[in-house]
């Protein structure tokens, strides 16, 4: 594997809500992984696993309780000047899940898309601003005349594309997509995913793709991390995850996905996952360990040896 450049290093990231109080929630509990330049990193898990919180903490919508997020070597968190924060806003952008809540209903589309341009002063005149807006609309497959309309006149898929245009307006390097297709119809999902893939090639973007639809995540991602209750339990390439899932939660997740294939559905056996089945002793160290190059699993020493032996076969 060629030595690739790291764009983001997430180290021991913690996001605890209500820390110290009886209703403390460890939404993100000591998660570490890297994202390489130009790749699509997928993050999957079921509701409550902390994947959205991880994304929002990376982009500093929430302040991390602990750990670091290094973007190009610079920590995103901690005390930062306004200018430094604005710099990060240009480099990292986000696409949200709900197409009906992610656009301000009272702004015209032109203003929605141009907000980033206005904040960072990227256009020197009104004409230049509108030209950029038209360019962006066409990039995402919409018409120029849509710039004068309001969000409620568009369908879910079109709104999501407007959201993508808005994120692209500041020319970011890294985009976090927080469940961008979950609220869309099946055929529209493919439209949006294809658009994202095309944009990645054309503009050299890096993505963190957060979703719970594993088939779509496998299609678009290079590598995938699986989260369960705030911890990352497995991380490897998309191919490897599907061919050789090691962590029992990953296996149970994969076995639960229905495939659009009646013949295989009739014979599919579902595996259920019980966290107690690990039978961890109190003094066992549960860590994120590398089983084969690039394939990480959260396990104890005992399990580590088991998995290593399995992988040799």
């Amino acid at each position, binding site marked *: 594997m060629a030595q690739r450049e790291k764009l983001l290093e997430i180290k021991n990231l913690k996001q605890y809500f209500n820390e110290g109080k009886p209703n403390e929630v460890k939404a993100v509990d000591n998660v570490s992984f890297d994202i390489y330049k130009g790749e699509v990193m997928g993050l999957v898990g*079921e*509701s409550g696993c902390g994947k959205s919180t991880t994304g929002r903490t990376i982009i500093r919508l929430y302040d991390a309780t602990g750990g670091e997020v290094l973007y190009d070597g610079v920590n995103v968190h901690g005390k930062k000047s306004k200018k430094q924060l604005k710099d990060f806003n240009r480099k990292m952008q986000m696409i949200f899940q709900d197409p009906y809540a992610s656009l301000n209903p009272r702004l015209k589309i032109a203003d929605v898309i141009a907000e980033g341009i206005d904040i960072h002063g990227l256009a020197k005149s009104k004409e230049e601003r509108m030209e950029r807006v038209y360019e962006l609309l066409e990039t995402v497959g919409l018409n120029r005349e849509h710039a004068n309309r309001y969000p409620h006149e568009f*369908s*879910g*898929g*079109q709104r999501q594309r407007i959201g993508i245009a808005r994120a692209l307006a500041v020319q970011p390097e890294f985009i976090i997509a927080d469940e961008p297709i979950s609220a869309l*119809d*099946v*055929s*529209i*999902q*493919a*439209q949006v*995913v*294809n658009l994202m*893939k095309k944009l990645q090639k054309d503009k050299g973007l890096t993505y963190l793709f957060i979703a*719970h639809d*594993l*088939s*779509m995540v*496998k*299609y678009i991602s290079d590598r995938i991390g699986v989260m369960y209750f705030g911890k990352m339990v497995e991380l490897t390439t998309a191919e490897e995850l*599907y061919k050789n899932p090691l962590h029992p939660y990953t296996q*149970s*997740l994969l076995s*639960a*996905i*229905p*495939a*659009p*294939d*009646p*013949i*295989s*559905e009739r014979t599919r056996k*579902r595996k*259920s*996952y019980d966290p107690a089945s690990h039978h961890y002793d109190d003094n066992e160290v549960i860590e994120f360990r590398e089983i084969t190059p690039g394939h990480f699993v959260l396990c104890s020493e005992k399990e580590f040896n088991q998995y290593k032996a399995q992988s040799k076969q």
Partner: protein
Amino acid sequence: MDKILQVKDLNISFHTFSGEVKAIRGVNFDLYNGETLAIVGESGSGKSVTTKAIMRLLPEHNSEIKSGEILFDGKDLTKLTDKQMQKIRGHDISMIFQDPMTSLNPTMKIGNQIMEPLIKHQNMSKHSAKERAIELLKLVGIPKPEIRINQYPHQFSGGMRQRVVIAIALACNPKILIADEPTTALDVTIQAQILELMKDLQKKIDTSIIFITHDLGVVANVADRVAVMYGGKIVEIGTADEIFYNPQHPYTWGLISSMPDMDTEDEELYSIPGTPPDLLDPPKGDAFAPRNPYAMKIDLEQEPPFFKVSDTHYAATWLLHPDAPKVEPPEAVKRRQSQYVGTVGVASGAAKLEKSQSPGIKEGK
């Protein structure tokens, strides 16, 4: 197999601020005893409106059943009064909805919610209703039912709530269960559990299920037959095998090719361009034509009738007309058709091209 429900030429419109929206434009299908019929479609296709019409749950002030019949148990449901429908709802035909959070009354104990249909429809005493409720909770897999029966909905998780909703729906052993996207709001593992539960209960209670969803994976898991809806009409109907391995309508091709599966390589995922039609002003001809890469001139002029592909498989597309050119379906569909040849022995793509007598009316079994 007997038919338990017959929907004939249903036309439903909504009167809105901007005009009349023709939400359902001539829908025909039958439901057979003991089967699961899946209705697939995207937002705006009319799948929810169709089933709400069966239950007569459409808002009275702006919806109108313009024509058509819904025949159940010798009666036409479109002509019944609300009082007569009340006897049928929850007793002969039950419905479960998508969001388990809002399907249950947050201020009523679970037990009372399950007992309600039992007391109202079957005139059970409170005591026997309670026993039956505990039985039902056991049936849907809720542990410690005697304790849970006195709890409130907020004390249950999403998956558990959906099980309770199923228990309420099946309380009176209805002949038909309509499930409107019951697992869309649930996690994958919970969804798998609920689907298993529904299939299990269907066998035990011998009820027919109409299952609405947009997830083709779920359809493959539960359905015996599948109806694909687009723009307020059914565009293709057939058994699950026929729809998944030998689809004939370009929209079905589009749906199947836009879902990646384990074998989808890095090639671009086929996506249907554009957006569903505005039913305020339905397009002339085939509603799918503007987004159909296989569209022909006739698609813009006349709506296609149903063409028979087999006794159980019908598709409304001019591509099946004897004069239509042969087209290559997308890669993903071709792969499936070769699978079909292997299992059923029908030549891929070849359909028995007999136009049915009247457009839109399916030839009965």
